[in-house]
C-alpha cells in the first residue's frame, strides 16, 4: 500500500497553507484579566467558568516558560497575540446556516462536513480559530447517549460533567502553557461515552488556525464511563504565514473501569519554510488517567508539523490492572524542533505500559525523545517496556533521547531500549538501482521504519500519515 500512496505525492510544499477569506471577529492583541473576561463574556459563560479562567490567569502571571526541554524557543511576547478569533457565524448550527466559505475550507482540507459526503464512519467536530464550526453525526450518537459536541456547548448544556472532570487530570497550575490555556481557551471538543456503550464510529476533531496574529488554545475532554469504548482522532493544519503562531492546547482523558480509549493524532501544523521562517509553536499538554480497574488508554501520534513541538501525552495508571500505550512517530525537517515523549505514572497494581517512539530527523532539525516512567510504592508488579529509535537523514540534524526512570517498588520491571540509525547513500543508491527514485526510496524506508506506529492508526489516517511522512521529508536526501 505504501508505494501506491507515495506515488500520489507530487508536491513538496505544505499543501494546507491557504487562507480562508472570511469575516472574523477578532479581539485586540494583549492579555489581561479584562481580556479573560471578554473571552468569557463572548462565550456567554457561567460565573464558575469565568472564575476558573481568572484563577488560571492569576496563576499563570506567576509562572515562567519552561526551559528544560532540548529546544531553542525564541522569546514570545504574550502581549502581541490576539487571544480570540471567531469566524463571524455564531456557533455550531445546521449545515444550511454554516458559511459556505467554511464548508469550502474544510472540503479543501479533505474534511467534508455534509454528512452524506462525510468520511464513512467518522463523526467530525470542525474547529476554526476559536470556535467550533460544525459537529457532524451528533444526533446519531445521541441515540446511544453519547455526547459529542464543542466544549462551549458542553459548558452550556452539560455543566455538571464539565465541572466534575475539567482540570481533574491537568490542573491549572500544572505548567505554564496549561495555565495559559486554562485562562484563555476558546473551544475544542467534549466527549462522553456512557456506561457499557461502544461508540459505533470514530470521533474526530479537526483543528484549523486561519486568522493571523492569533493563538489557538483549544481544550478537549473525553470521559469514557465504565465498560465503554471510543476511538478518537485529532487532525490539525494552519495557513502558511511568515510569523510564528502559538498553539497551546490541553487534552484530558478519563477512563473508567473496564473502559478503553484510543486517541490518535496526526499533527500537521504549518512547520515554517525551509529557512525556518514562520511556523506554529505547538506547546501541548495531553494527559489521561486510567481511573478504574482494567482500564486502557492508548496514545498514537504522528507529528510532522509545527516549527517547535513540546508535547508529552501521558498516562496515570491508577486502576489496578490498567494499561497504557504511547506510540509515536515524530518527524523533523529543515529547522523544525521537537521535544516529545510521554510520562507513564504507575500507581495501581499490575499496571502495564508500553512506549514505542520513532524519531526521524532531517535537514538541520532537532528531534528529542523525553520520557518518564515512574512506579509508585504501591504499584506491585508494574511493568514498562520502552523502545526509542532514532533515524537520521543527513548529518546536520540532531537526535536525542532523555529517558527518566523512578522506580519505587522492587517488584516492578522497567526496560528501556534505544537505537540510532541512518539512511545511508548506499541504501538510497541500492533502491535507485532497482528503479526507485530517491524520494520514493526515502518514503519506503521511512514508512518501513515507522510502520509499527502507523499500523496503530485507523485506516483512513494511516494512509494520510504515510503520505505526510513522505511529503515532510521530500528534498531531505540527495
Amino acid at each position, binding site marked *: 500500500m*505504501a*508505494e*501506491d500512496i507515495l*506515488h500520489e505525492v507530487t508536491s513538496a510544499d505544505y499543501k494546507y497553507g491557504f487562507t480562508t477569506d472570511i469575516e472574523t471577529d477578532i479581539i485586540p492583541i494583549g492579555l489581561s484579566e479584562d481580556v479573560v473576561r471578554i473571552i468569557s463574556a463572548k462565550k456567554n459563560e457561567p460565573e464558575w467558568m469565568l472564575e476558573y479562567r481568572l484563577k488560571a490567569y492569576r496563576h499563570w502571571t506567576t509562572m515562567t516558560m519552561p526551559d528544560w526541554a532540548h529546544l531553542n524557543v525564541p522569546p514570545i511576547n504574550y502581549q502581541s497575540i490576539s487571544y480570540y478569533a471567531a469566524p463571524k457565524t455564531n456557533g455550531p448550527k445546521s449545515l444550511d446556516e454554516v458559511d459556505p466559505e467554511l464548508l469550502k475550507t474544510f472540503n479543501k482540507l479533505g474534511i467534508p462536513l455534509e454528512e452524506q459526503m462525510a468520511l464513512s464512519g467518522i463523526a467530525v467536530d470542525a474547529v476554526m480559530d476559536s470556535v467550533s464550526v460544525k459537529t457532524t453525526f451528533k444526533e446519531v450518537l445521541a441515540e446511544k447517549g453519547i455526547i459529542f459536541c464543542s466544549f462551549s456547548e458542553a459548558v452550556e448544556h452539560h455543566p455538571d460533567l464539565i465541572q466534575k472532570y475539567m482540570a481533574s487530570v491537568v490542573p491549572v497550575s500544572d505548567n505554564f502553557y496549561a495555565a495559559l490555556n486554562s485562562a484563555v481557551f476558546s473551544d475544542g471538543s467534549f466527549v462522553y461515552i456512557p456506561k457499557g456503550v461502544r461508540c459505533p464510529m470514530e470521533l474526530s476533531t479537526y483543528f484549523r488556525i486561519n486568522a493571523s496574529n492569533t493563538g489557538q488554545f483549544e481544550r478537549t475532554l473525553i470521559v469514557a464511563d465504565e465498560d465503554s469504548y471510543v476511538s478518537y482522532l485529532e487532525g490539525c493544519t494552519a495557513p502558511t504565514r511568515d510569523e510564528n503562531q502559538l498553539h497551546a492546547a490541553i487534552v484530558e482523558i478519563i477512563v473508567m473501569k473496564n473502559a478503553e480509549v484510543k486517541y490518535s493524532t496526526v499533527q500537521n501544523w504549518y512547520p515554517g519554510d525551509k529557512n525556518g521562517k514562520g511556523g506554529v509553536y505547538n506547546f501541548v499538554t495531553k494527559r489521561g488517567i486510567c481511573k478504574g480497574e482494567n482500564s486502557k488508554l492508548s496514545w498514537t501520534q504522528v507529528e510532522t508539523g509545527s516549527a517547535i513541538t513540546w508535547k508529552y501525552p501521558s498516562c496515570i495508571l491508577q486502576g489496578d490492572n490498567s494499561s497504557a500505550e504511547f506510540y509515536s512517530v515524530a518527524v523533523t525537517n529543515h529547522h523544525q524542533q521537537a521535544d516529545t515523549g510521554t510520562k507513564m505514572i504507575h500507581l495501581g497494581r499490575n499496571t502495564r505500559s508500553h512506549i514505542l517512539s520513532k524519531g526521524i530527523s532531517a535537514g538541520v532539525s532537532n528531534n528529542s525523545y523525553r520520557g518518564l516512567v515512574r512506579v509508585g510504592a504501591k504499584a506491585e508488579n508494574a511493568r514498562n517496556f520502552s523502545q526509542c529509535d532514532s533515524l537520521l537523514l543527513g548529518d546536520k540534524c540532531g537526535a536525542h533521547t532523555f529517558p527518566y526512570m523512578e522506580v519505587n517498588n522492587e517488584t516492578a520491571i522497567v526496560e528501556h531500549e534505544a537505537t540510532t*540509525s541512518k539512511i*545511508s*547513500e*548506499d*541504501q538510497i*543508491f*541500492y*533502491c*535507485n*538501482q*532497482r*528503479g*526507485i*527514485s*530517491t524520494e*520514493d526510496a526515502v518514503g*519506503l*524506508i521511512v514508512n*518501513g*521504519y515507522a*510502520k509499527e506506529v502507523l499500523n496503530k492508526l485507523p485506516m483512513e489516517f494511516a494512509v494520510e500519515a504515510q503520505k505526510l511522512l513522505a511529503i515532510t521529508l521530500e528534498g531531505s536526501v*540527495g
Partner: protein
Amino acid sequence: MLQIKDLHANINGKEILKGLNLTVRPGEIHAIMGPNGAGKSTLSSVLTGNPVFDVTHGEVTFLGKNLLELAPEERANEGIFLSFQYPVEIPGVSMVNFMRTAINEQRKYRNLPPVSATDFLRLMREKKELVEMDNKLANRSVNEGFSGGEKKRNEIFQMAMLEPRLSILDETDSGLDIDALRIVANGVNKLKSPENASIIITHYQRLLEYIVPDFVHVLYDGRIVKSGDKTLALELENKGYDWIKQEVEGK
C-alpha cells in the same frame, strides 16, 4: 547495445577508470577479470550511475541513449541491473514491498499499469523457485540479517524478477559454495536470450564453467588491456596477473 568509449572516472579526485573501451552486443556474455583494485566495481558503479563517482571524460551509449545523462533509476528502468558485490541491508522494508515498488516503477516508466496483487504473487513464487530461495527470506526485510550467500542469491532473485536487458554481476560468485554457484549460474542462463546481455565480473574460472562467456576481458589499472575468448580465463587462473602487468608496463 552498450558502447563504452574512452571512459575516465574519478572518486574524490583520484582517477580510477583511465580510458576504458568496451562494446557489448545483444545476446553476448562478457566476463571481466582483473586484480583487486583494478576498477571492476568502479565500472559497474559508473554504468549504473552511482553518484560517488565523477565521469570526467568519455561516452557511454545504451540502446541508443546517452547513458551518462540518465539518473540511476532511469538506467535501471531502461533495463540495466547490477548484482552488487556488497548488497545493502534496508531494515523495515520487506522484500515483498521492495520488489513490488521496483516492479511498479519499472512498469510506470514503460507506461504500464501497476501489477495486480495476484500476478505479482505468482511472479514472486515463480522466481523464488528459480533461485531456490527460502520463503522466509522473501518475507524478511531487504537483506537484513541475510548471510553472505543469501544476499547474493537475493540479488539473482531480484534480477529474475526485473528481467533486465543488461545484467552486471559484480563478484556474485565470491563466497558461494558450489550449490549456490550452480543456482546463480542457472538464474543467469535462464535469462539468456538473443536480446539480453550480461557482464560478469569474477575472479574465478569456476563460474565460467557454468556460464560460458563469449568474451573475456582483463581490466587492469582502469583500462581493458586484454580481450580474448573463454580460454583467456583459464590462462589467467593458471598464470595470475603478473604477466599481464609486464605486458602492459612493457609497452
